[in-house]
């Protein structure tokens, strides 16, 4: 069989497709990032590092990096902590854990674009239930004092909620200061169920005896057992969950394109959206390619960090 040539027929289609669809485009993007090419133009000029300099200097690209990084730094910690928290809660339940697991996984399955629009209507200033609920809370004394902080002696009108009761509740997607937070909230909503399932799988791999042993050694509270046993034993899950979530967060596009188009005033101008807007919508291929290459660098750094940690064996087996 070693003499047969069948293996060529078996691997050739895959190799050709890999080279044409995956490898070659990366070189194309790298090359075009040093040009001022536009689709439809016959010729183009080499502009050396001009596109990359623009990325570093122009304020709209500074906003782009800041939006993407802020999004990642909000979504990753929140969805990881919520994922781990709900996994721990579910694994300690006596009944009902399967139902919660199903519900929390629903956002992972559902078409994000459709759900983004549903969220948009939820937080809409006019027809949204979110603000309607907050508004009706203004009349409820205990809720009002809790939200404004007046129960501990704060001045109600100094808090956003007290102000909202008087001047109208915030416009979650239309306000420059809130839009990125709202988009990140949808990101967390979508991602934490995925992390929860990964952590649940990680938890089943923790040997029961370790908890008994830890208890005998004096870990008498649940928190101590968590810190001594669960947390370190979840090492491989942590690495996987954190890198996957970061990579996915860098790729956020659907919610931004459908709800804010990068606005208001570039507050949600994340990298993939910027790449789409510059490179494809405005046909500024050079700058779009430069964004592509920087994006690729970010993702590669994250992936290689993961590989490094996995090879160092962050697990205790």
């Amino acid at each position: 069989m070693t003499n047969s040539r069948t293996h060529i027929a078996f691997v050739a289609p895959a190799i050709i497709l890999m080279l044409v669809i995956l490898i070659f485009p990366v070189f194309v993007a790298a090359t075009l990032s040093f040009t001022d090419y536009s689709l439809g133009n016959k010729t183009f000029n080499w502009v050396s590092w001009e596109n990359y300099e623009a990325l570093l200097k122009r304020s709209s690209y500074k906003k782009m990096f800041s939006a993407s990084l802020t999004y990642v730094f909000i979504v990753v910690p929140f969805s990881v902590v919520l994922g781990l928290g709900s996994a721990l809660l579910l694994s300690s339940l006596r009944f009902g854990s399967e139902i919660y697991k199903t519900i929390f996984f629903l956002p992972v399955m559902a078409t994000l674009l459709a759900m983004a629009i549903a969220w948009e209507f939820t937080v809409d200033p006019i027809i949204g239930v979110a603000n309607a609920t907050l508004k009706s809370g203004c009349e409820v004394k205990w809720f009002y004092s809790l939200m404004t902080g007046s129960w501990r002696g704060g001045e109600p009108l100094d808090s956003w909620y007290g102000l909202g009761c008087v001047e109208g509740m915030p416009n979650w997607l239309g306000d420059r200061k809130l839009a990125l937070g709202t988009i990140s909230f949808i990101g967390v909503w979508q991602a934490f169920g995925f992390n929860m399932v990964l952590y649940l799988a990680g938890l089943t791999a923790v040997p029961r005896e370790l908890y008994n042993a830890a208890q005998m050694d004096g870990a008498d509270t649940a928190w101590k057992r968590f810190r001594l046993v669960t947390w370190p034993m979840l090492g491989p899950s942590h690495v996987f969950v954190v890198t996957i979530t970061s990579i996915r967060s860098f790729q956020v596009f659907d919610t931004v394109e459908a709800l804010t188009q990068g606005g208001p005033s570039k507050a949600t101008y994340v990298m993939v959206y910027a790449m789409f807007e510059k490179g494809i919508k405005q046909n500024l291929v050079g700058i779009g390619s430069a964004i592509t290459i920087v994006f690729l660098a970010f993702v590669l750094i994250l992936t290689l960090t993961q590989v490094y940690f996995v090879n160092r064996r962050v697990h205790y087996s």
Partner: protein
Amino acid sequence: MNKSENWYSEFSKHMILLFGTIIVILPFYLMLSFSFKSPAEIQSISGGFFGNQALMTDNRCLKAGKSKEACTMRPVIYNYSAAFSEAPLLRYLLNGVIVTLSIFFIQVIVALPCAYALAKLKFWGRDVVFGLVIFCLLIPVHAIALPLYLMLAKVGLTNTYASLVIPWTISVFGIFLMRQFFKTVPDDLIDAARMDGMSEFSIVWTVMLPTAIPALLAFGIFSVVAHWNDYFWPRVVITGDRDLMTPPLGLRMFKSDMDGNEYGPMMAAATVIVAPLVVAFLLAQRRFIEGITLTGMK
């Protein structure tokens, strides 16, 4: 710990989880509720979950010159019929099915023989090919989108079914996954097949394929879910032709065309698009969770 303390902690855990459930369910609840209610009820945030279902008159239908009786209906009927008539929703759904199934089909045809060769055949350069597969796993889709779009535009393939399918024909993850799976298939099985005079080609499709059904099913769920829900790539290559739009892209067009009071029909369309996967997920939960997390490295 005594019994009542135990129940107290169980109760508080359920309280926390119920609060989470409300937030997670909220957009699904509103999507369904909007798809039932009349424009007036949506505007005034009233009518509960299902609305009053008072008869309403469709002004657009009147303008089209139809009788008043023909244009009067329950809001739920209005929303869902408008979803299918204002936009070619049926066409979008059909496109979604065509695109996702062709992608999965081609991925299997390309990946399976390659995975078999990498797992079970010895040939010069095998490690190089496997290295290439691993290397390609590192390349995120968004990083090749722009150049790939330019390449497709150069050969005049944008706004075609082909452009929706081509970038996904190669799934390095599929190759990797199937290779790992084939490694576990005993060599005796293949040797026996060879003794019977089977060609390598028929070994792949009649011996290896049936053993790989569980792995293939997990991969299939992953692939179909990812491409049914994908919005980014269709948004890039389909720029005007509505007849080629996939469900998420069609819904997006619906949104940008919306004039005023179309929340109901739009959420009806959203419900129709989200429903197939959610229902399938509820029916075969374990398999879906397996398929999506197992392949989570993409």
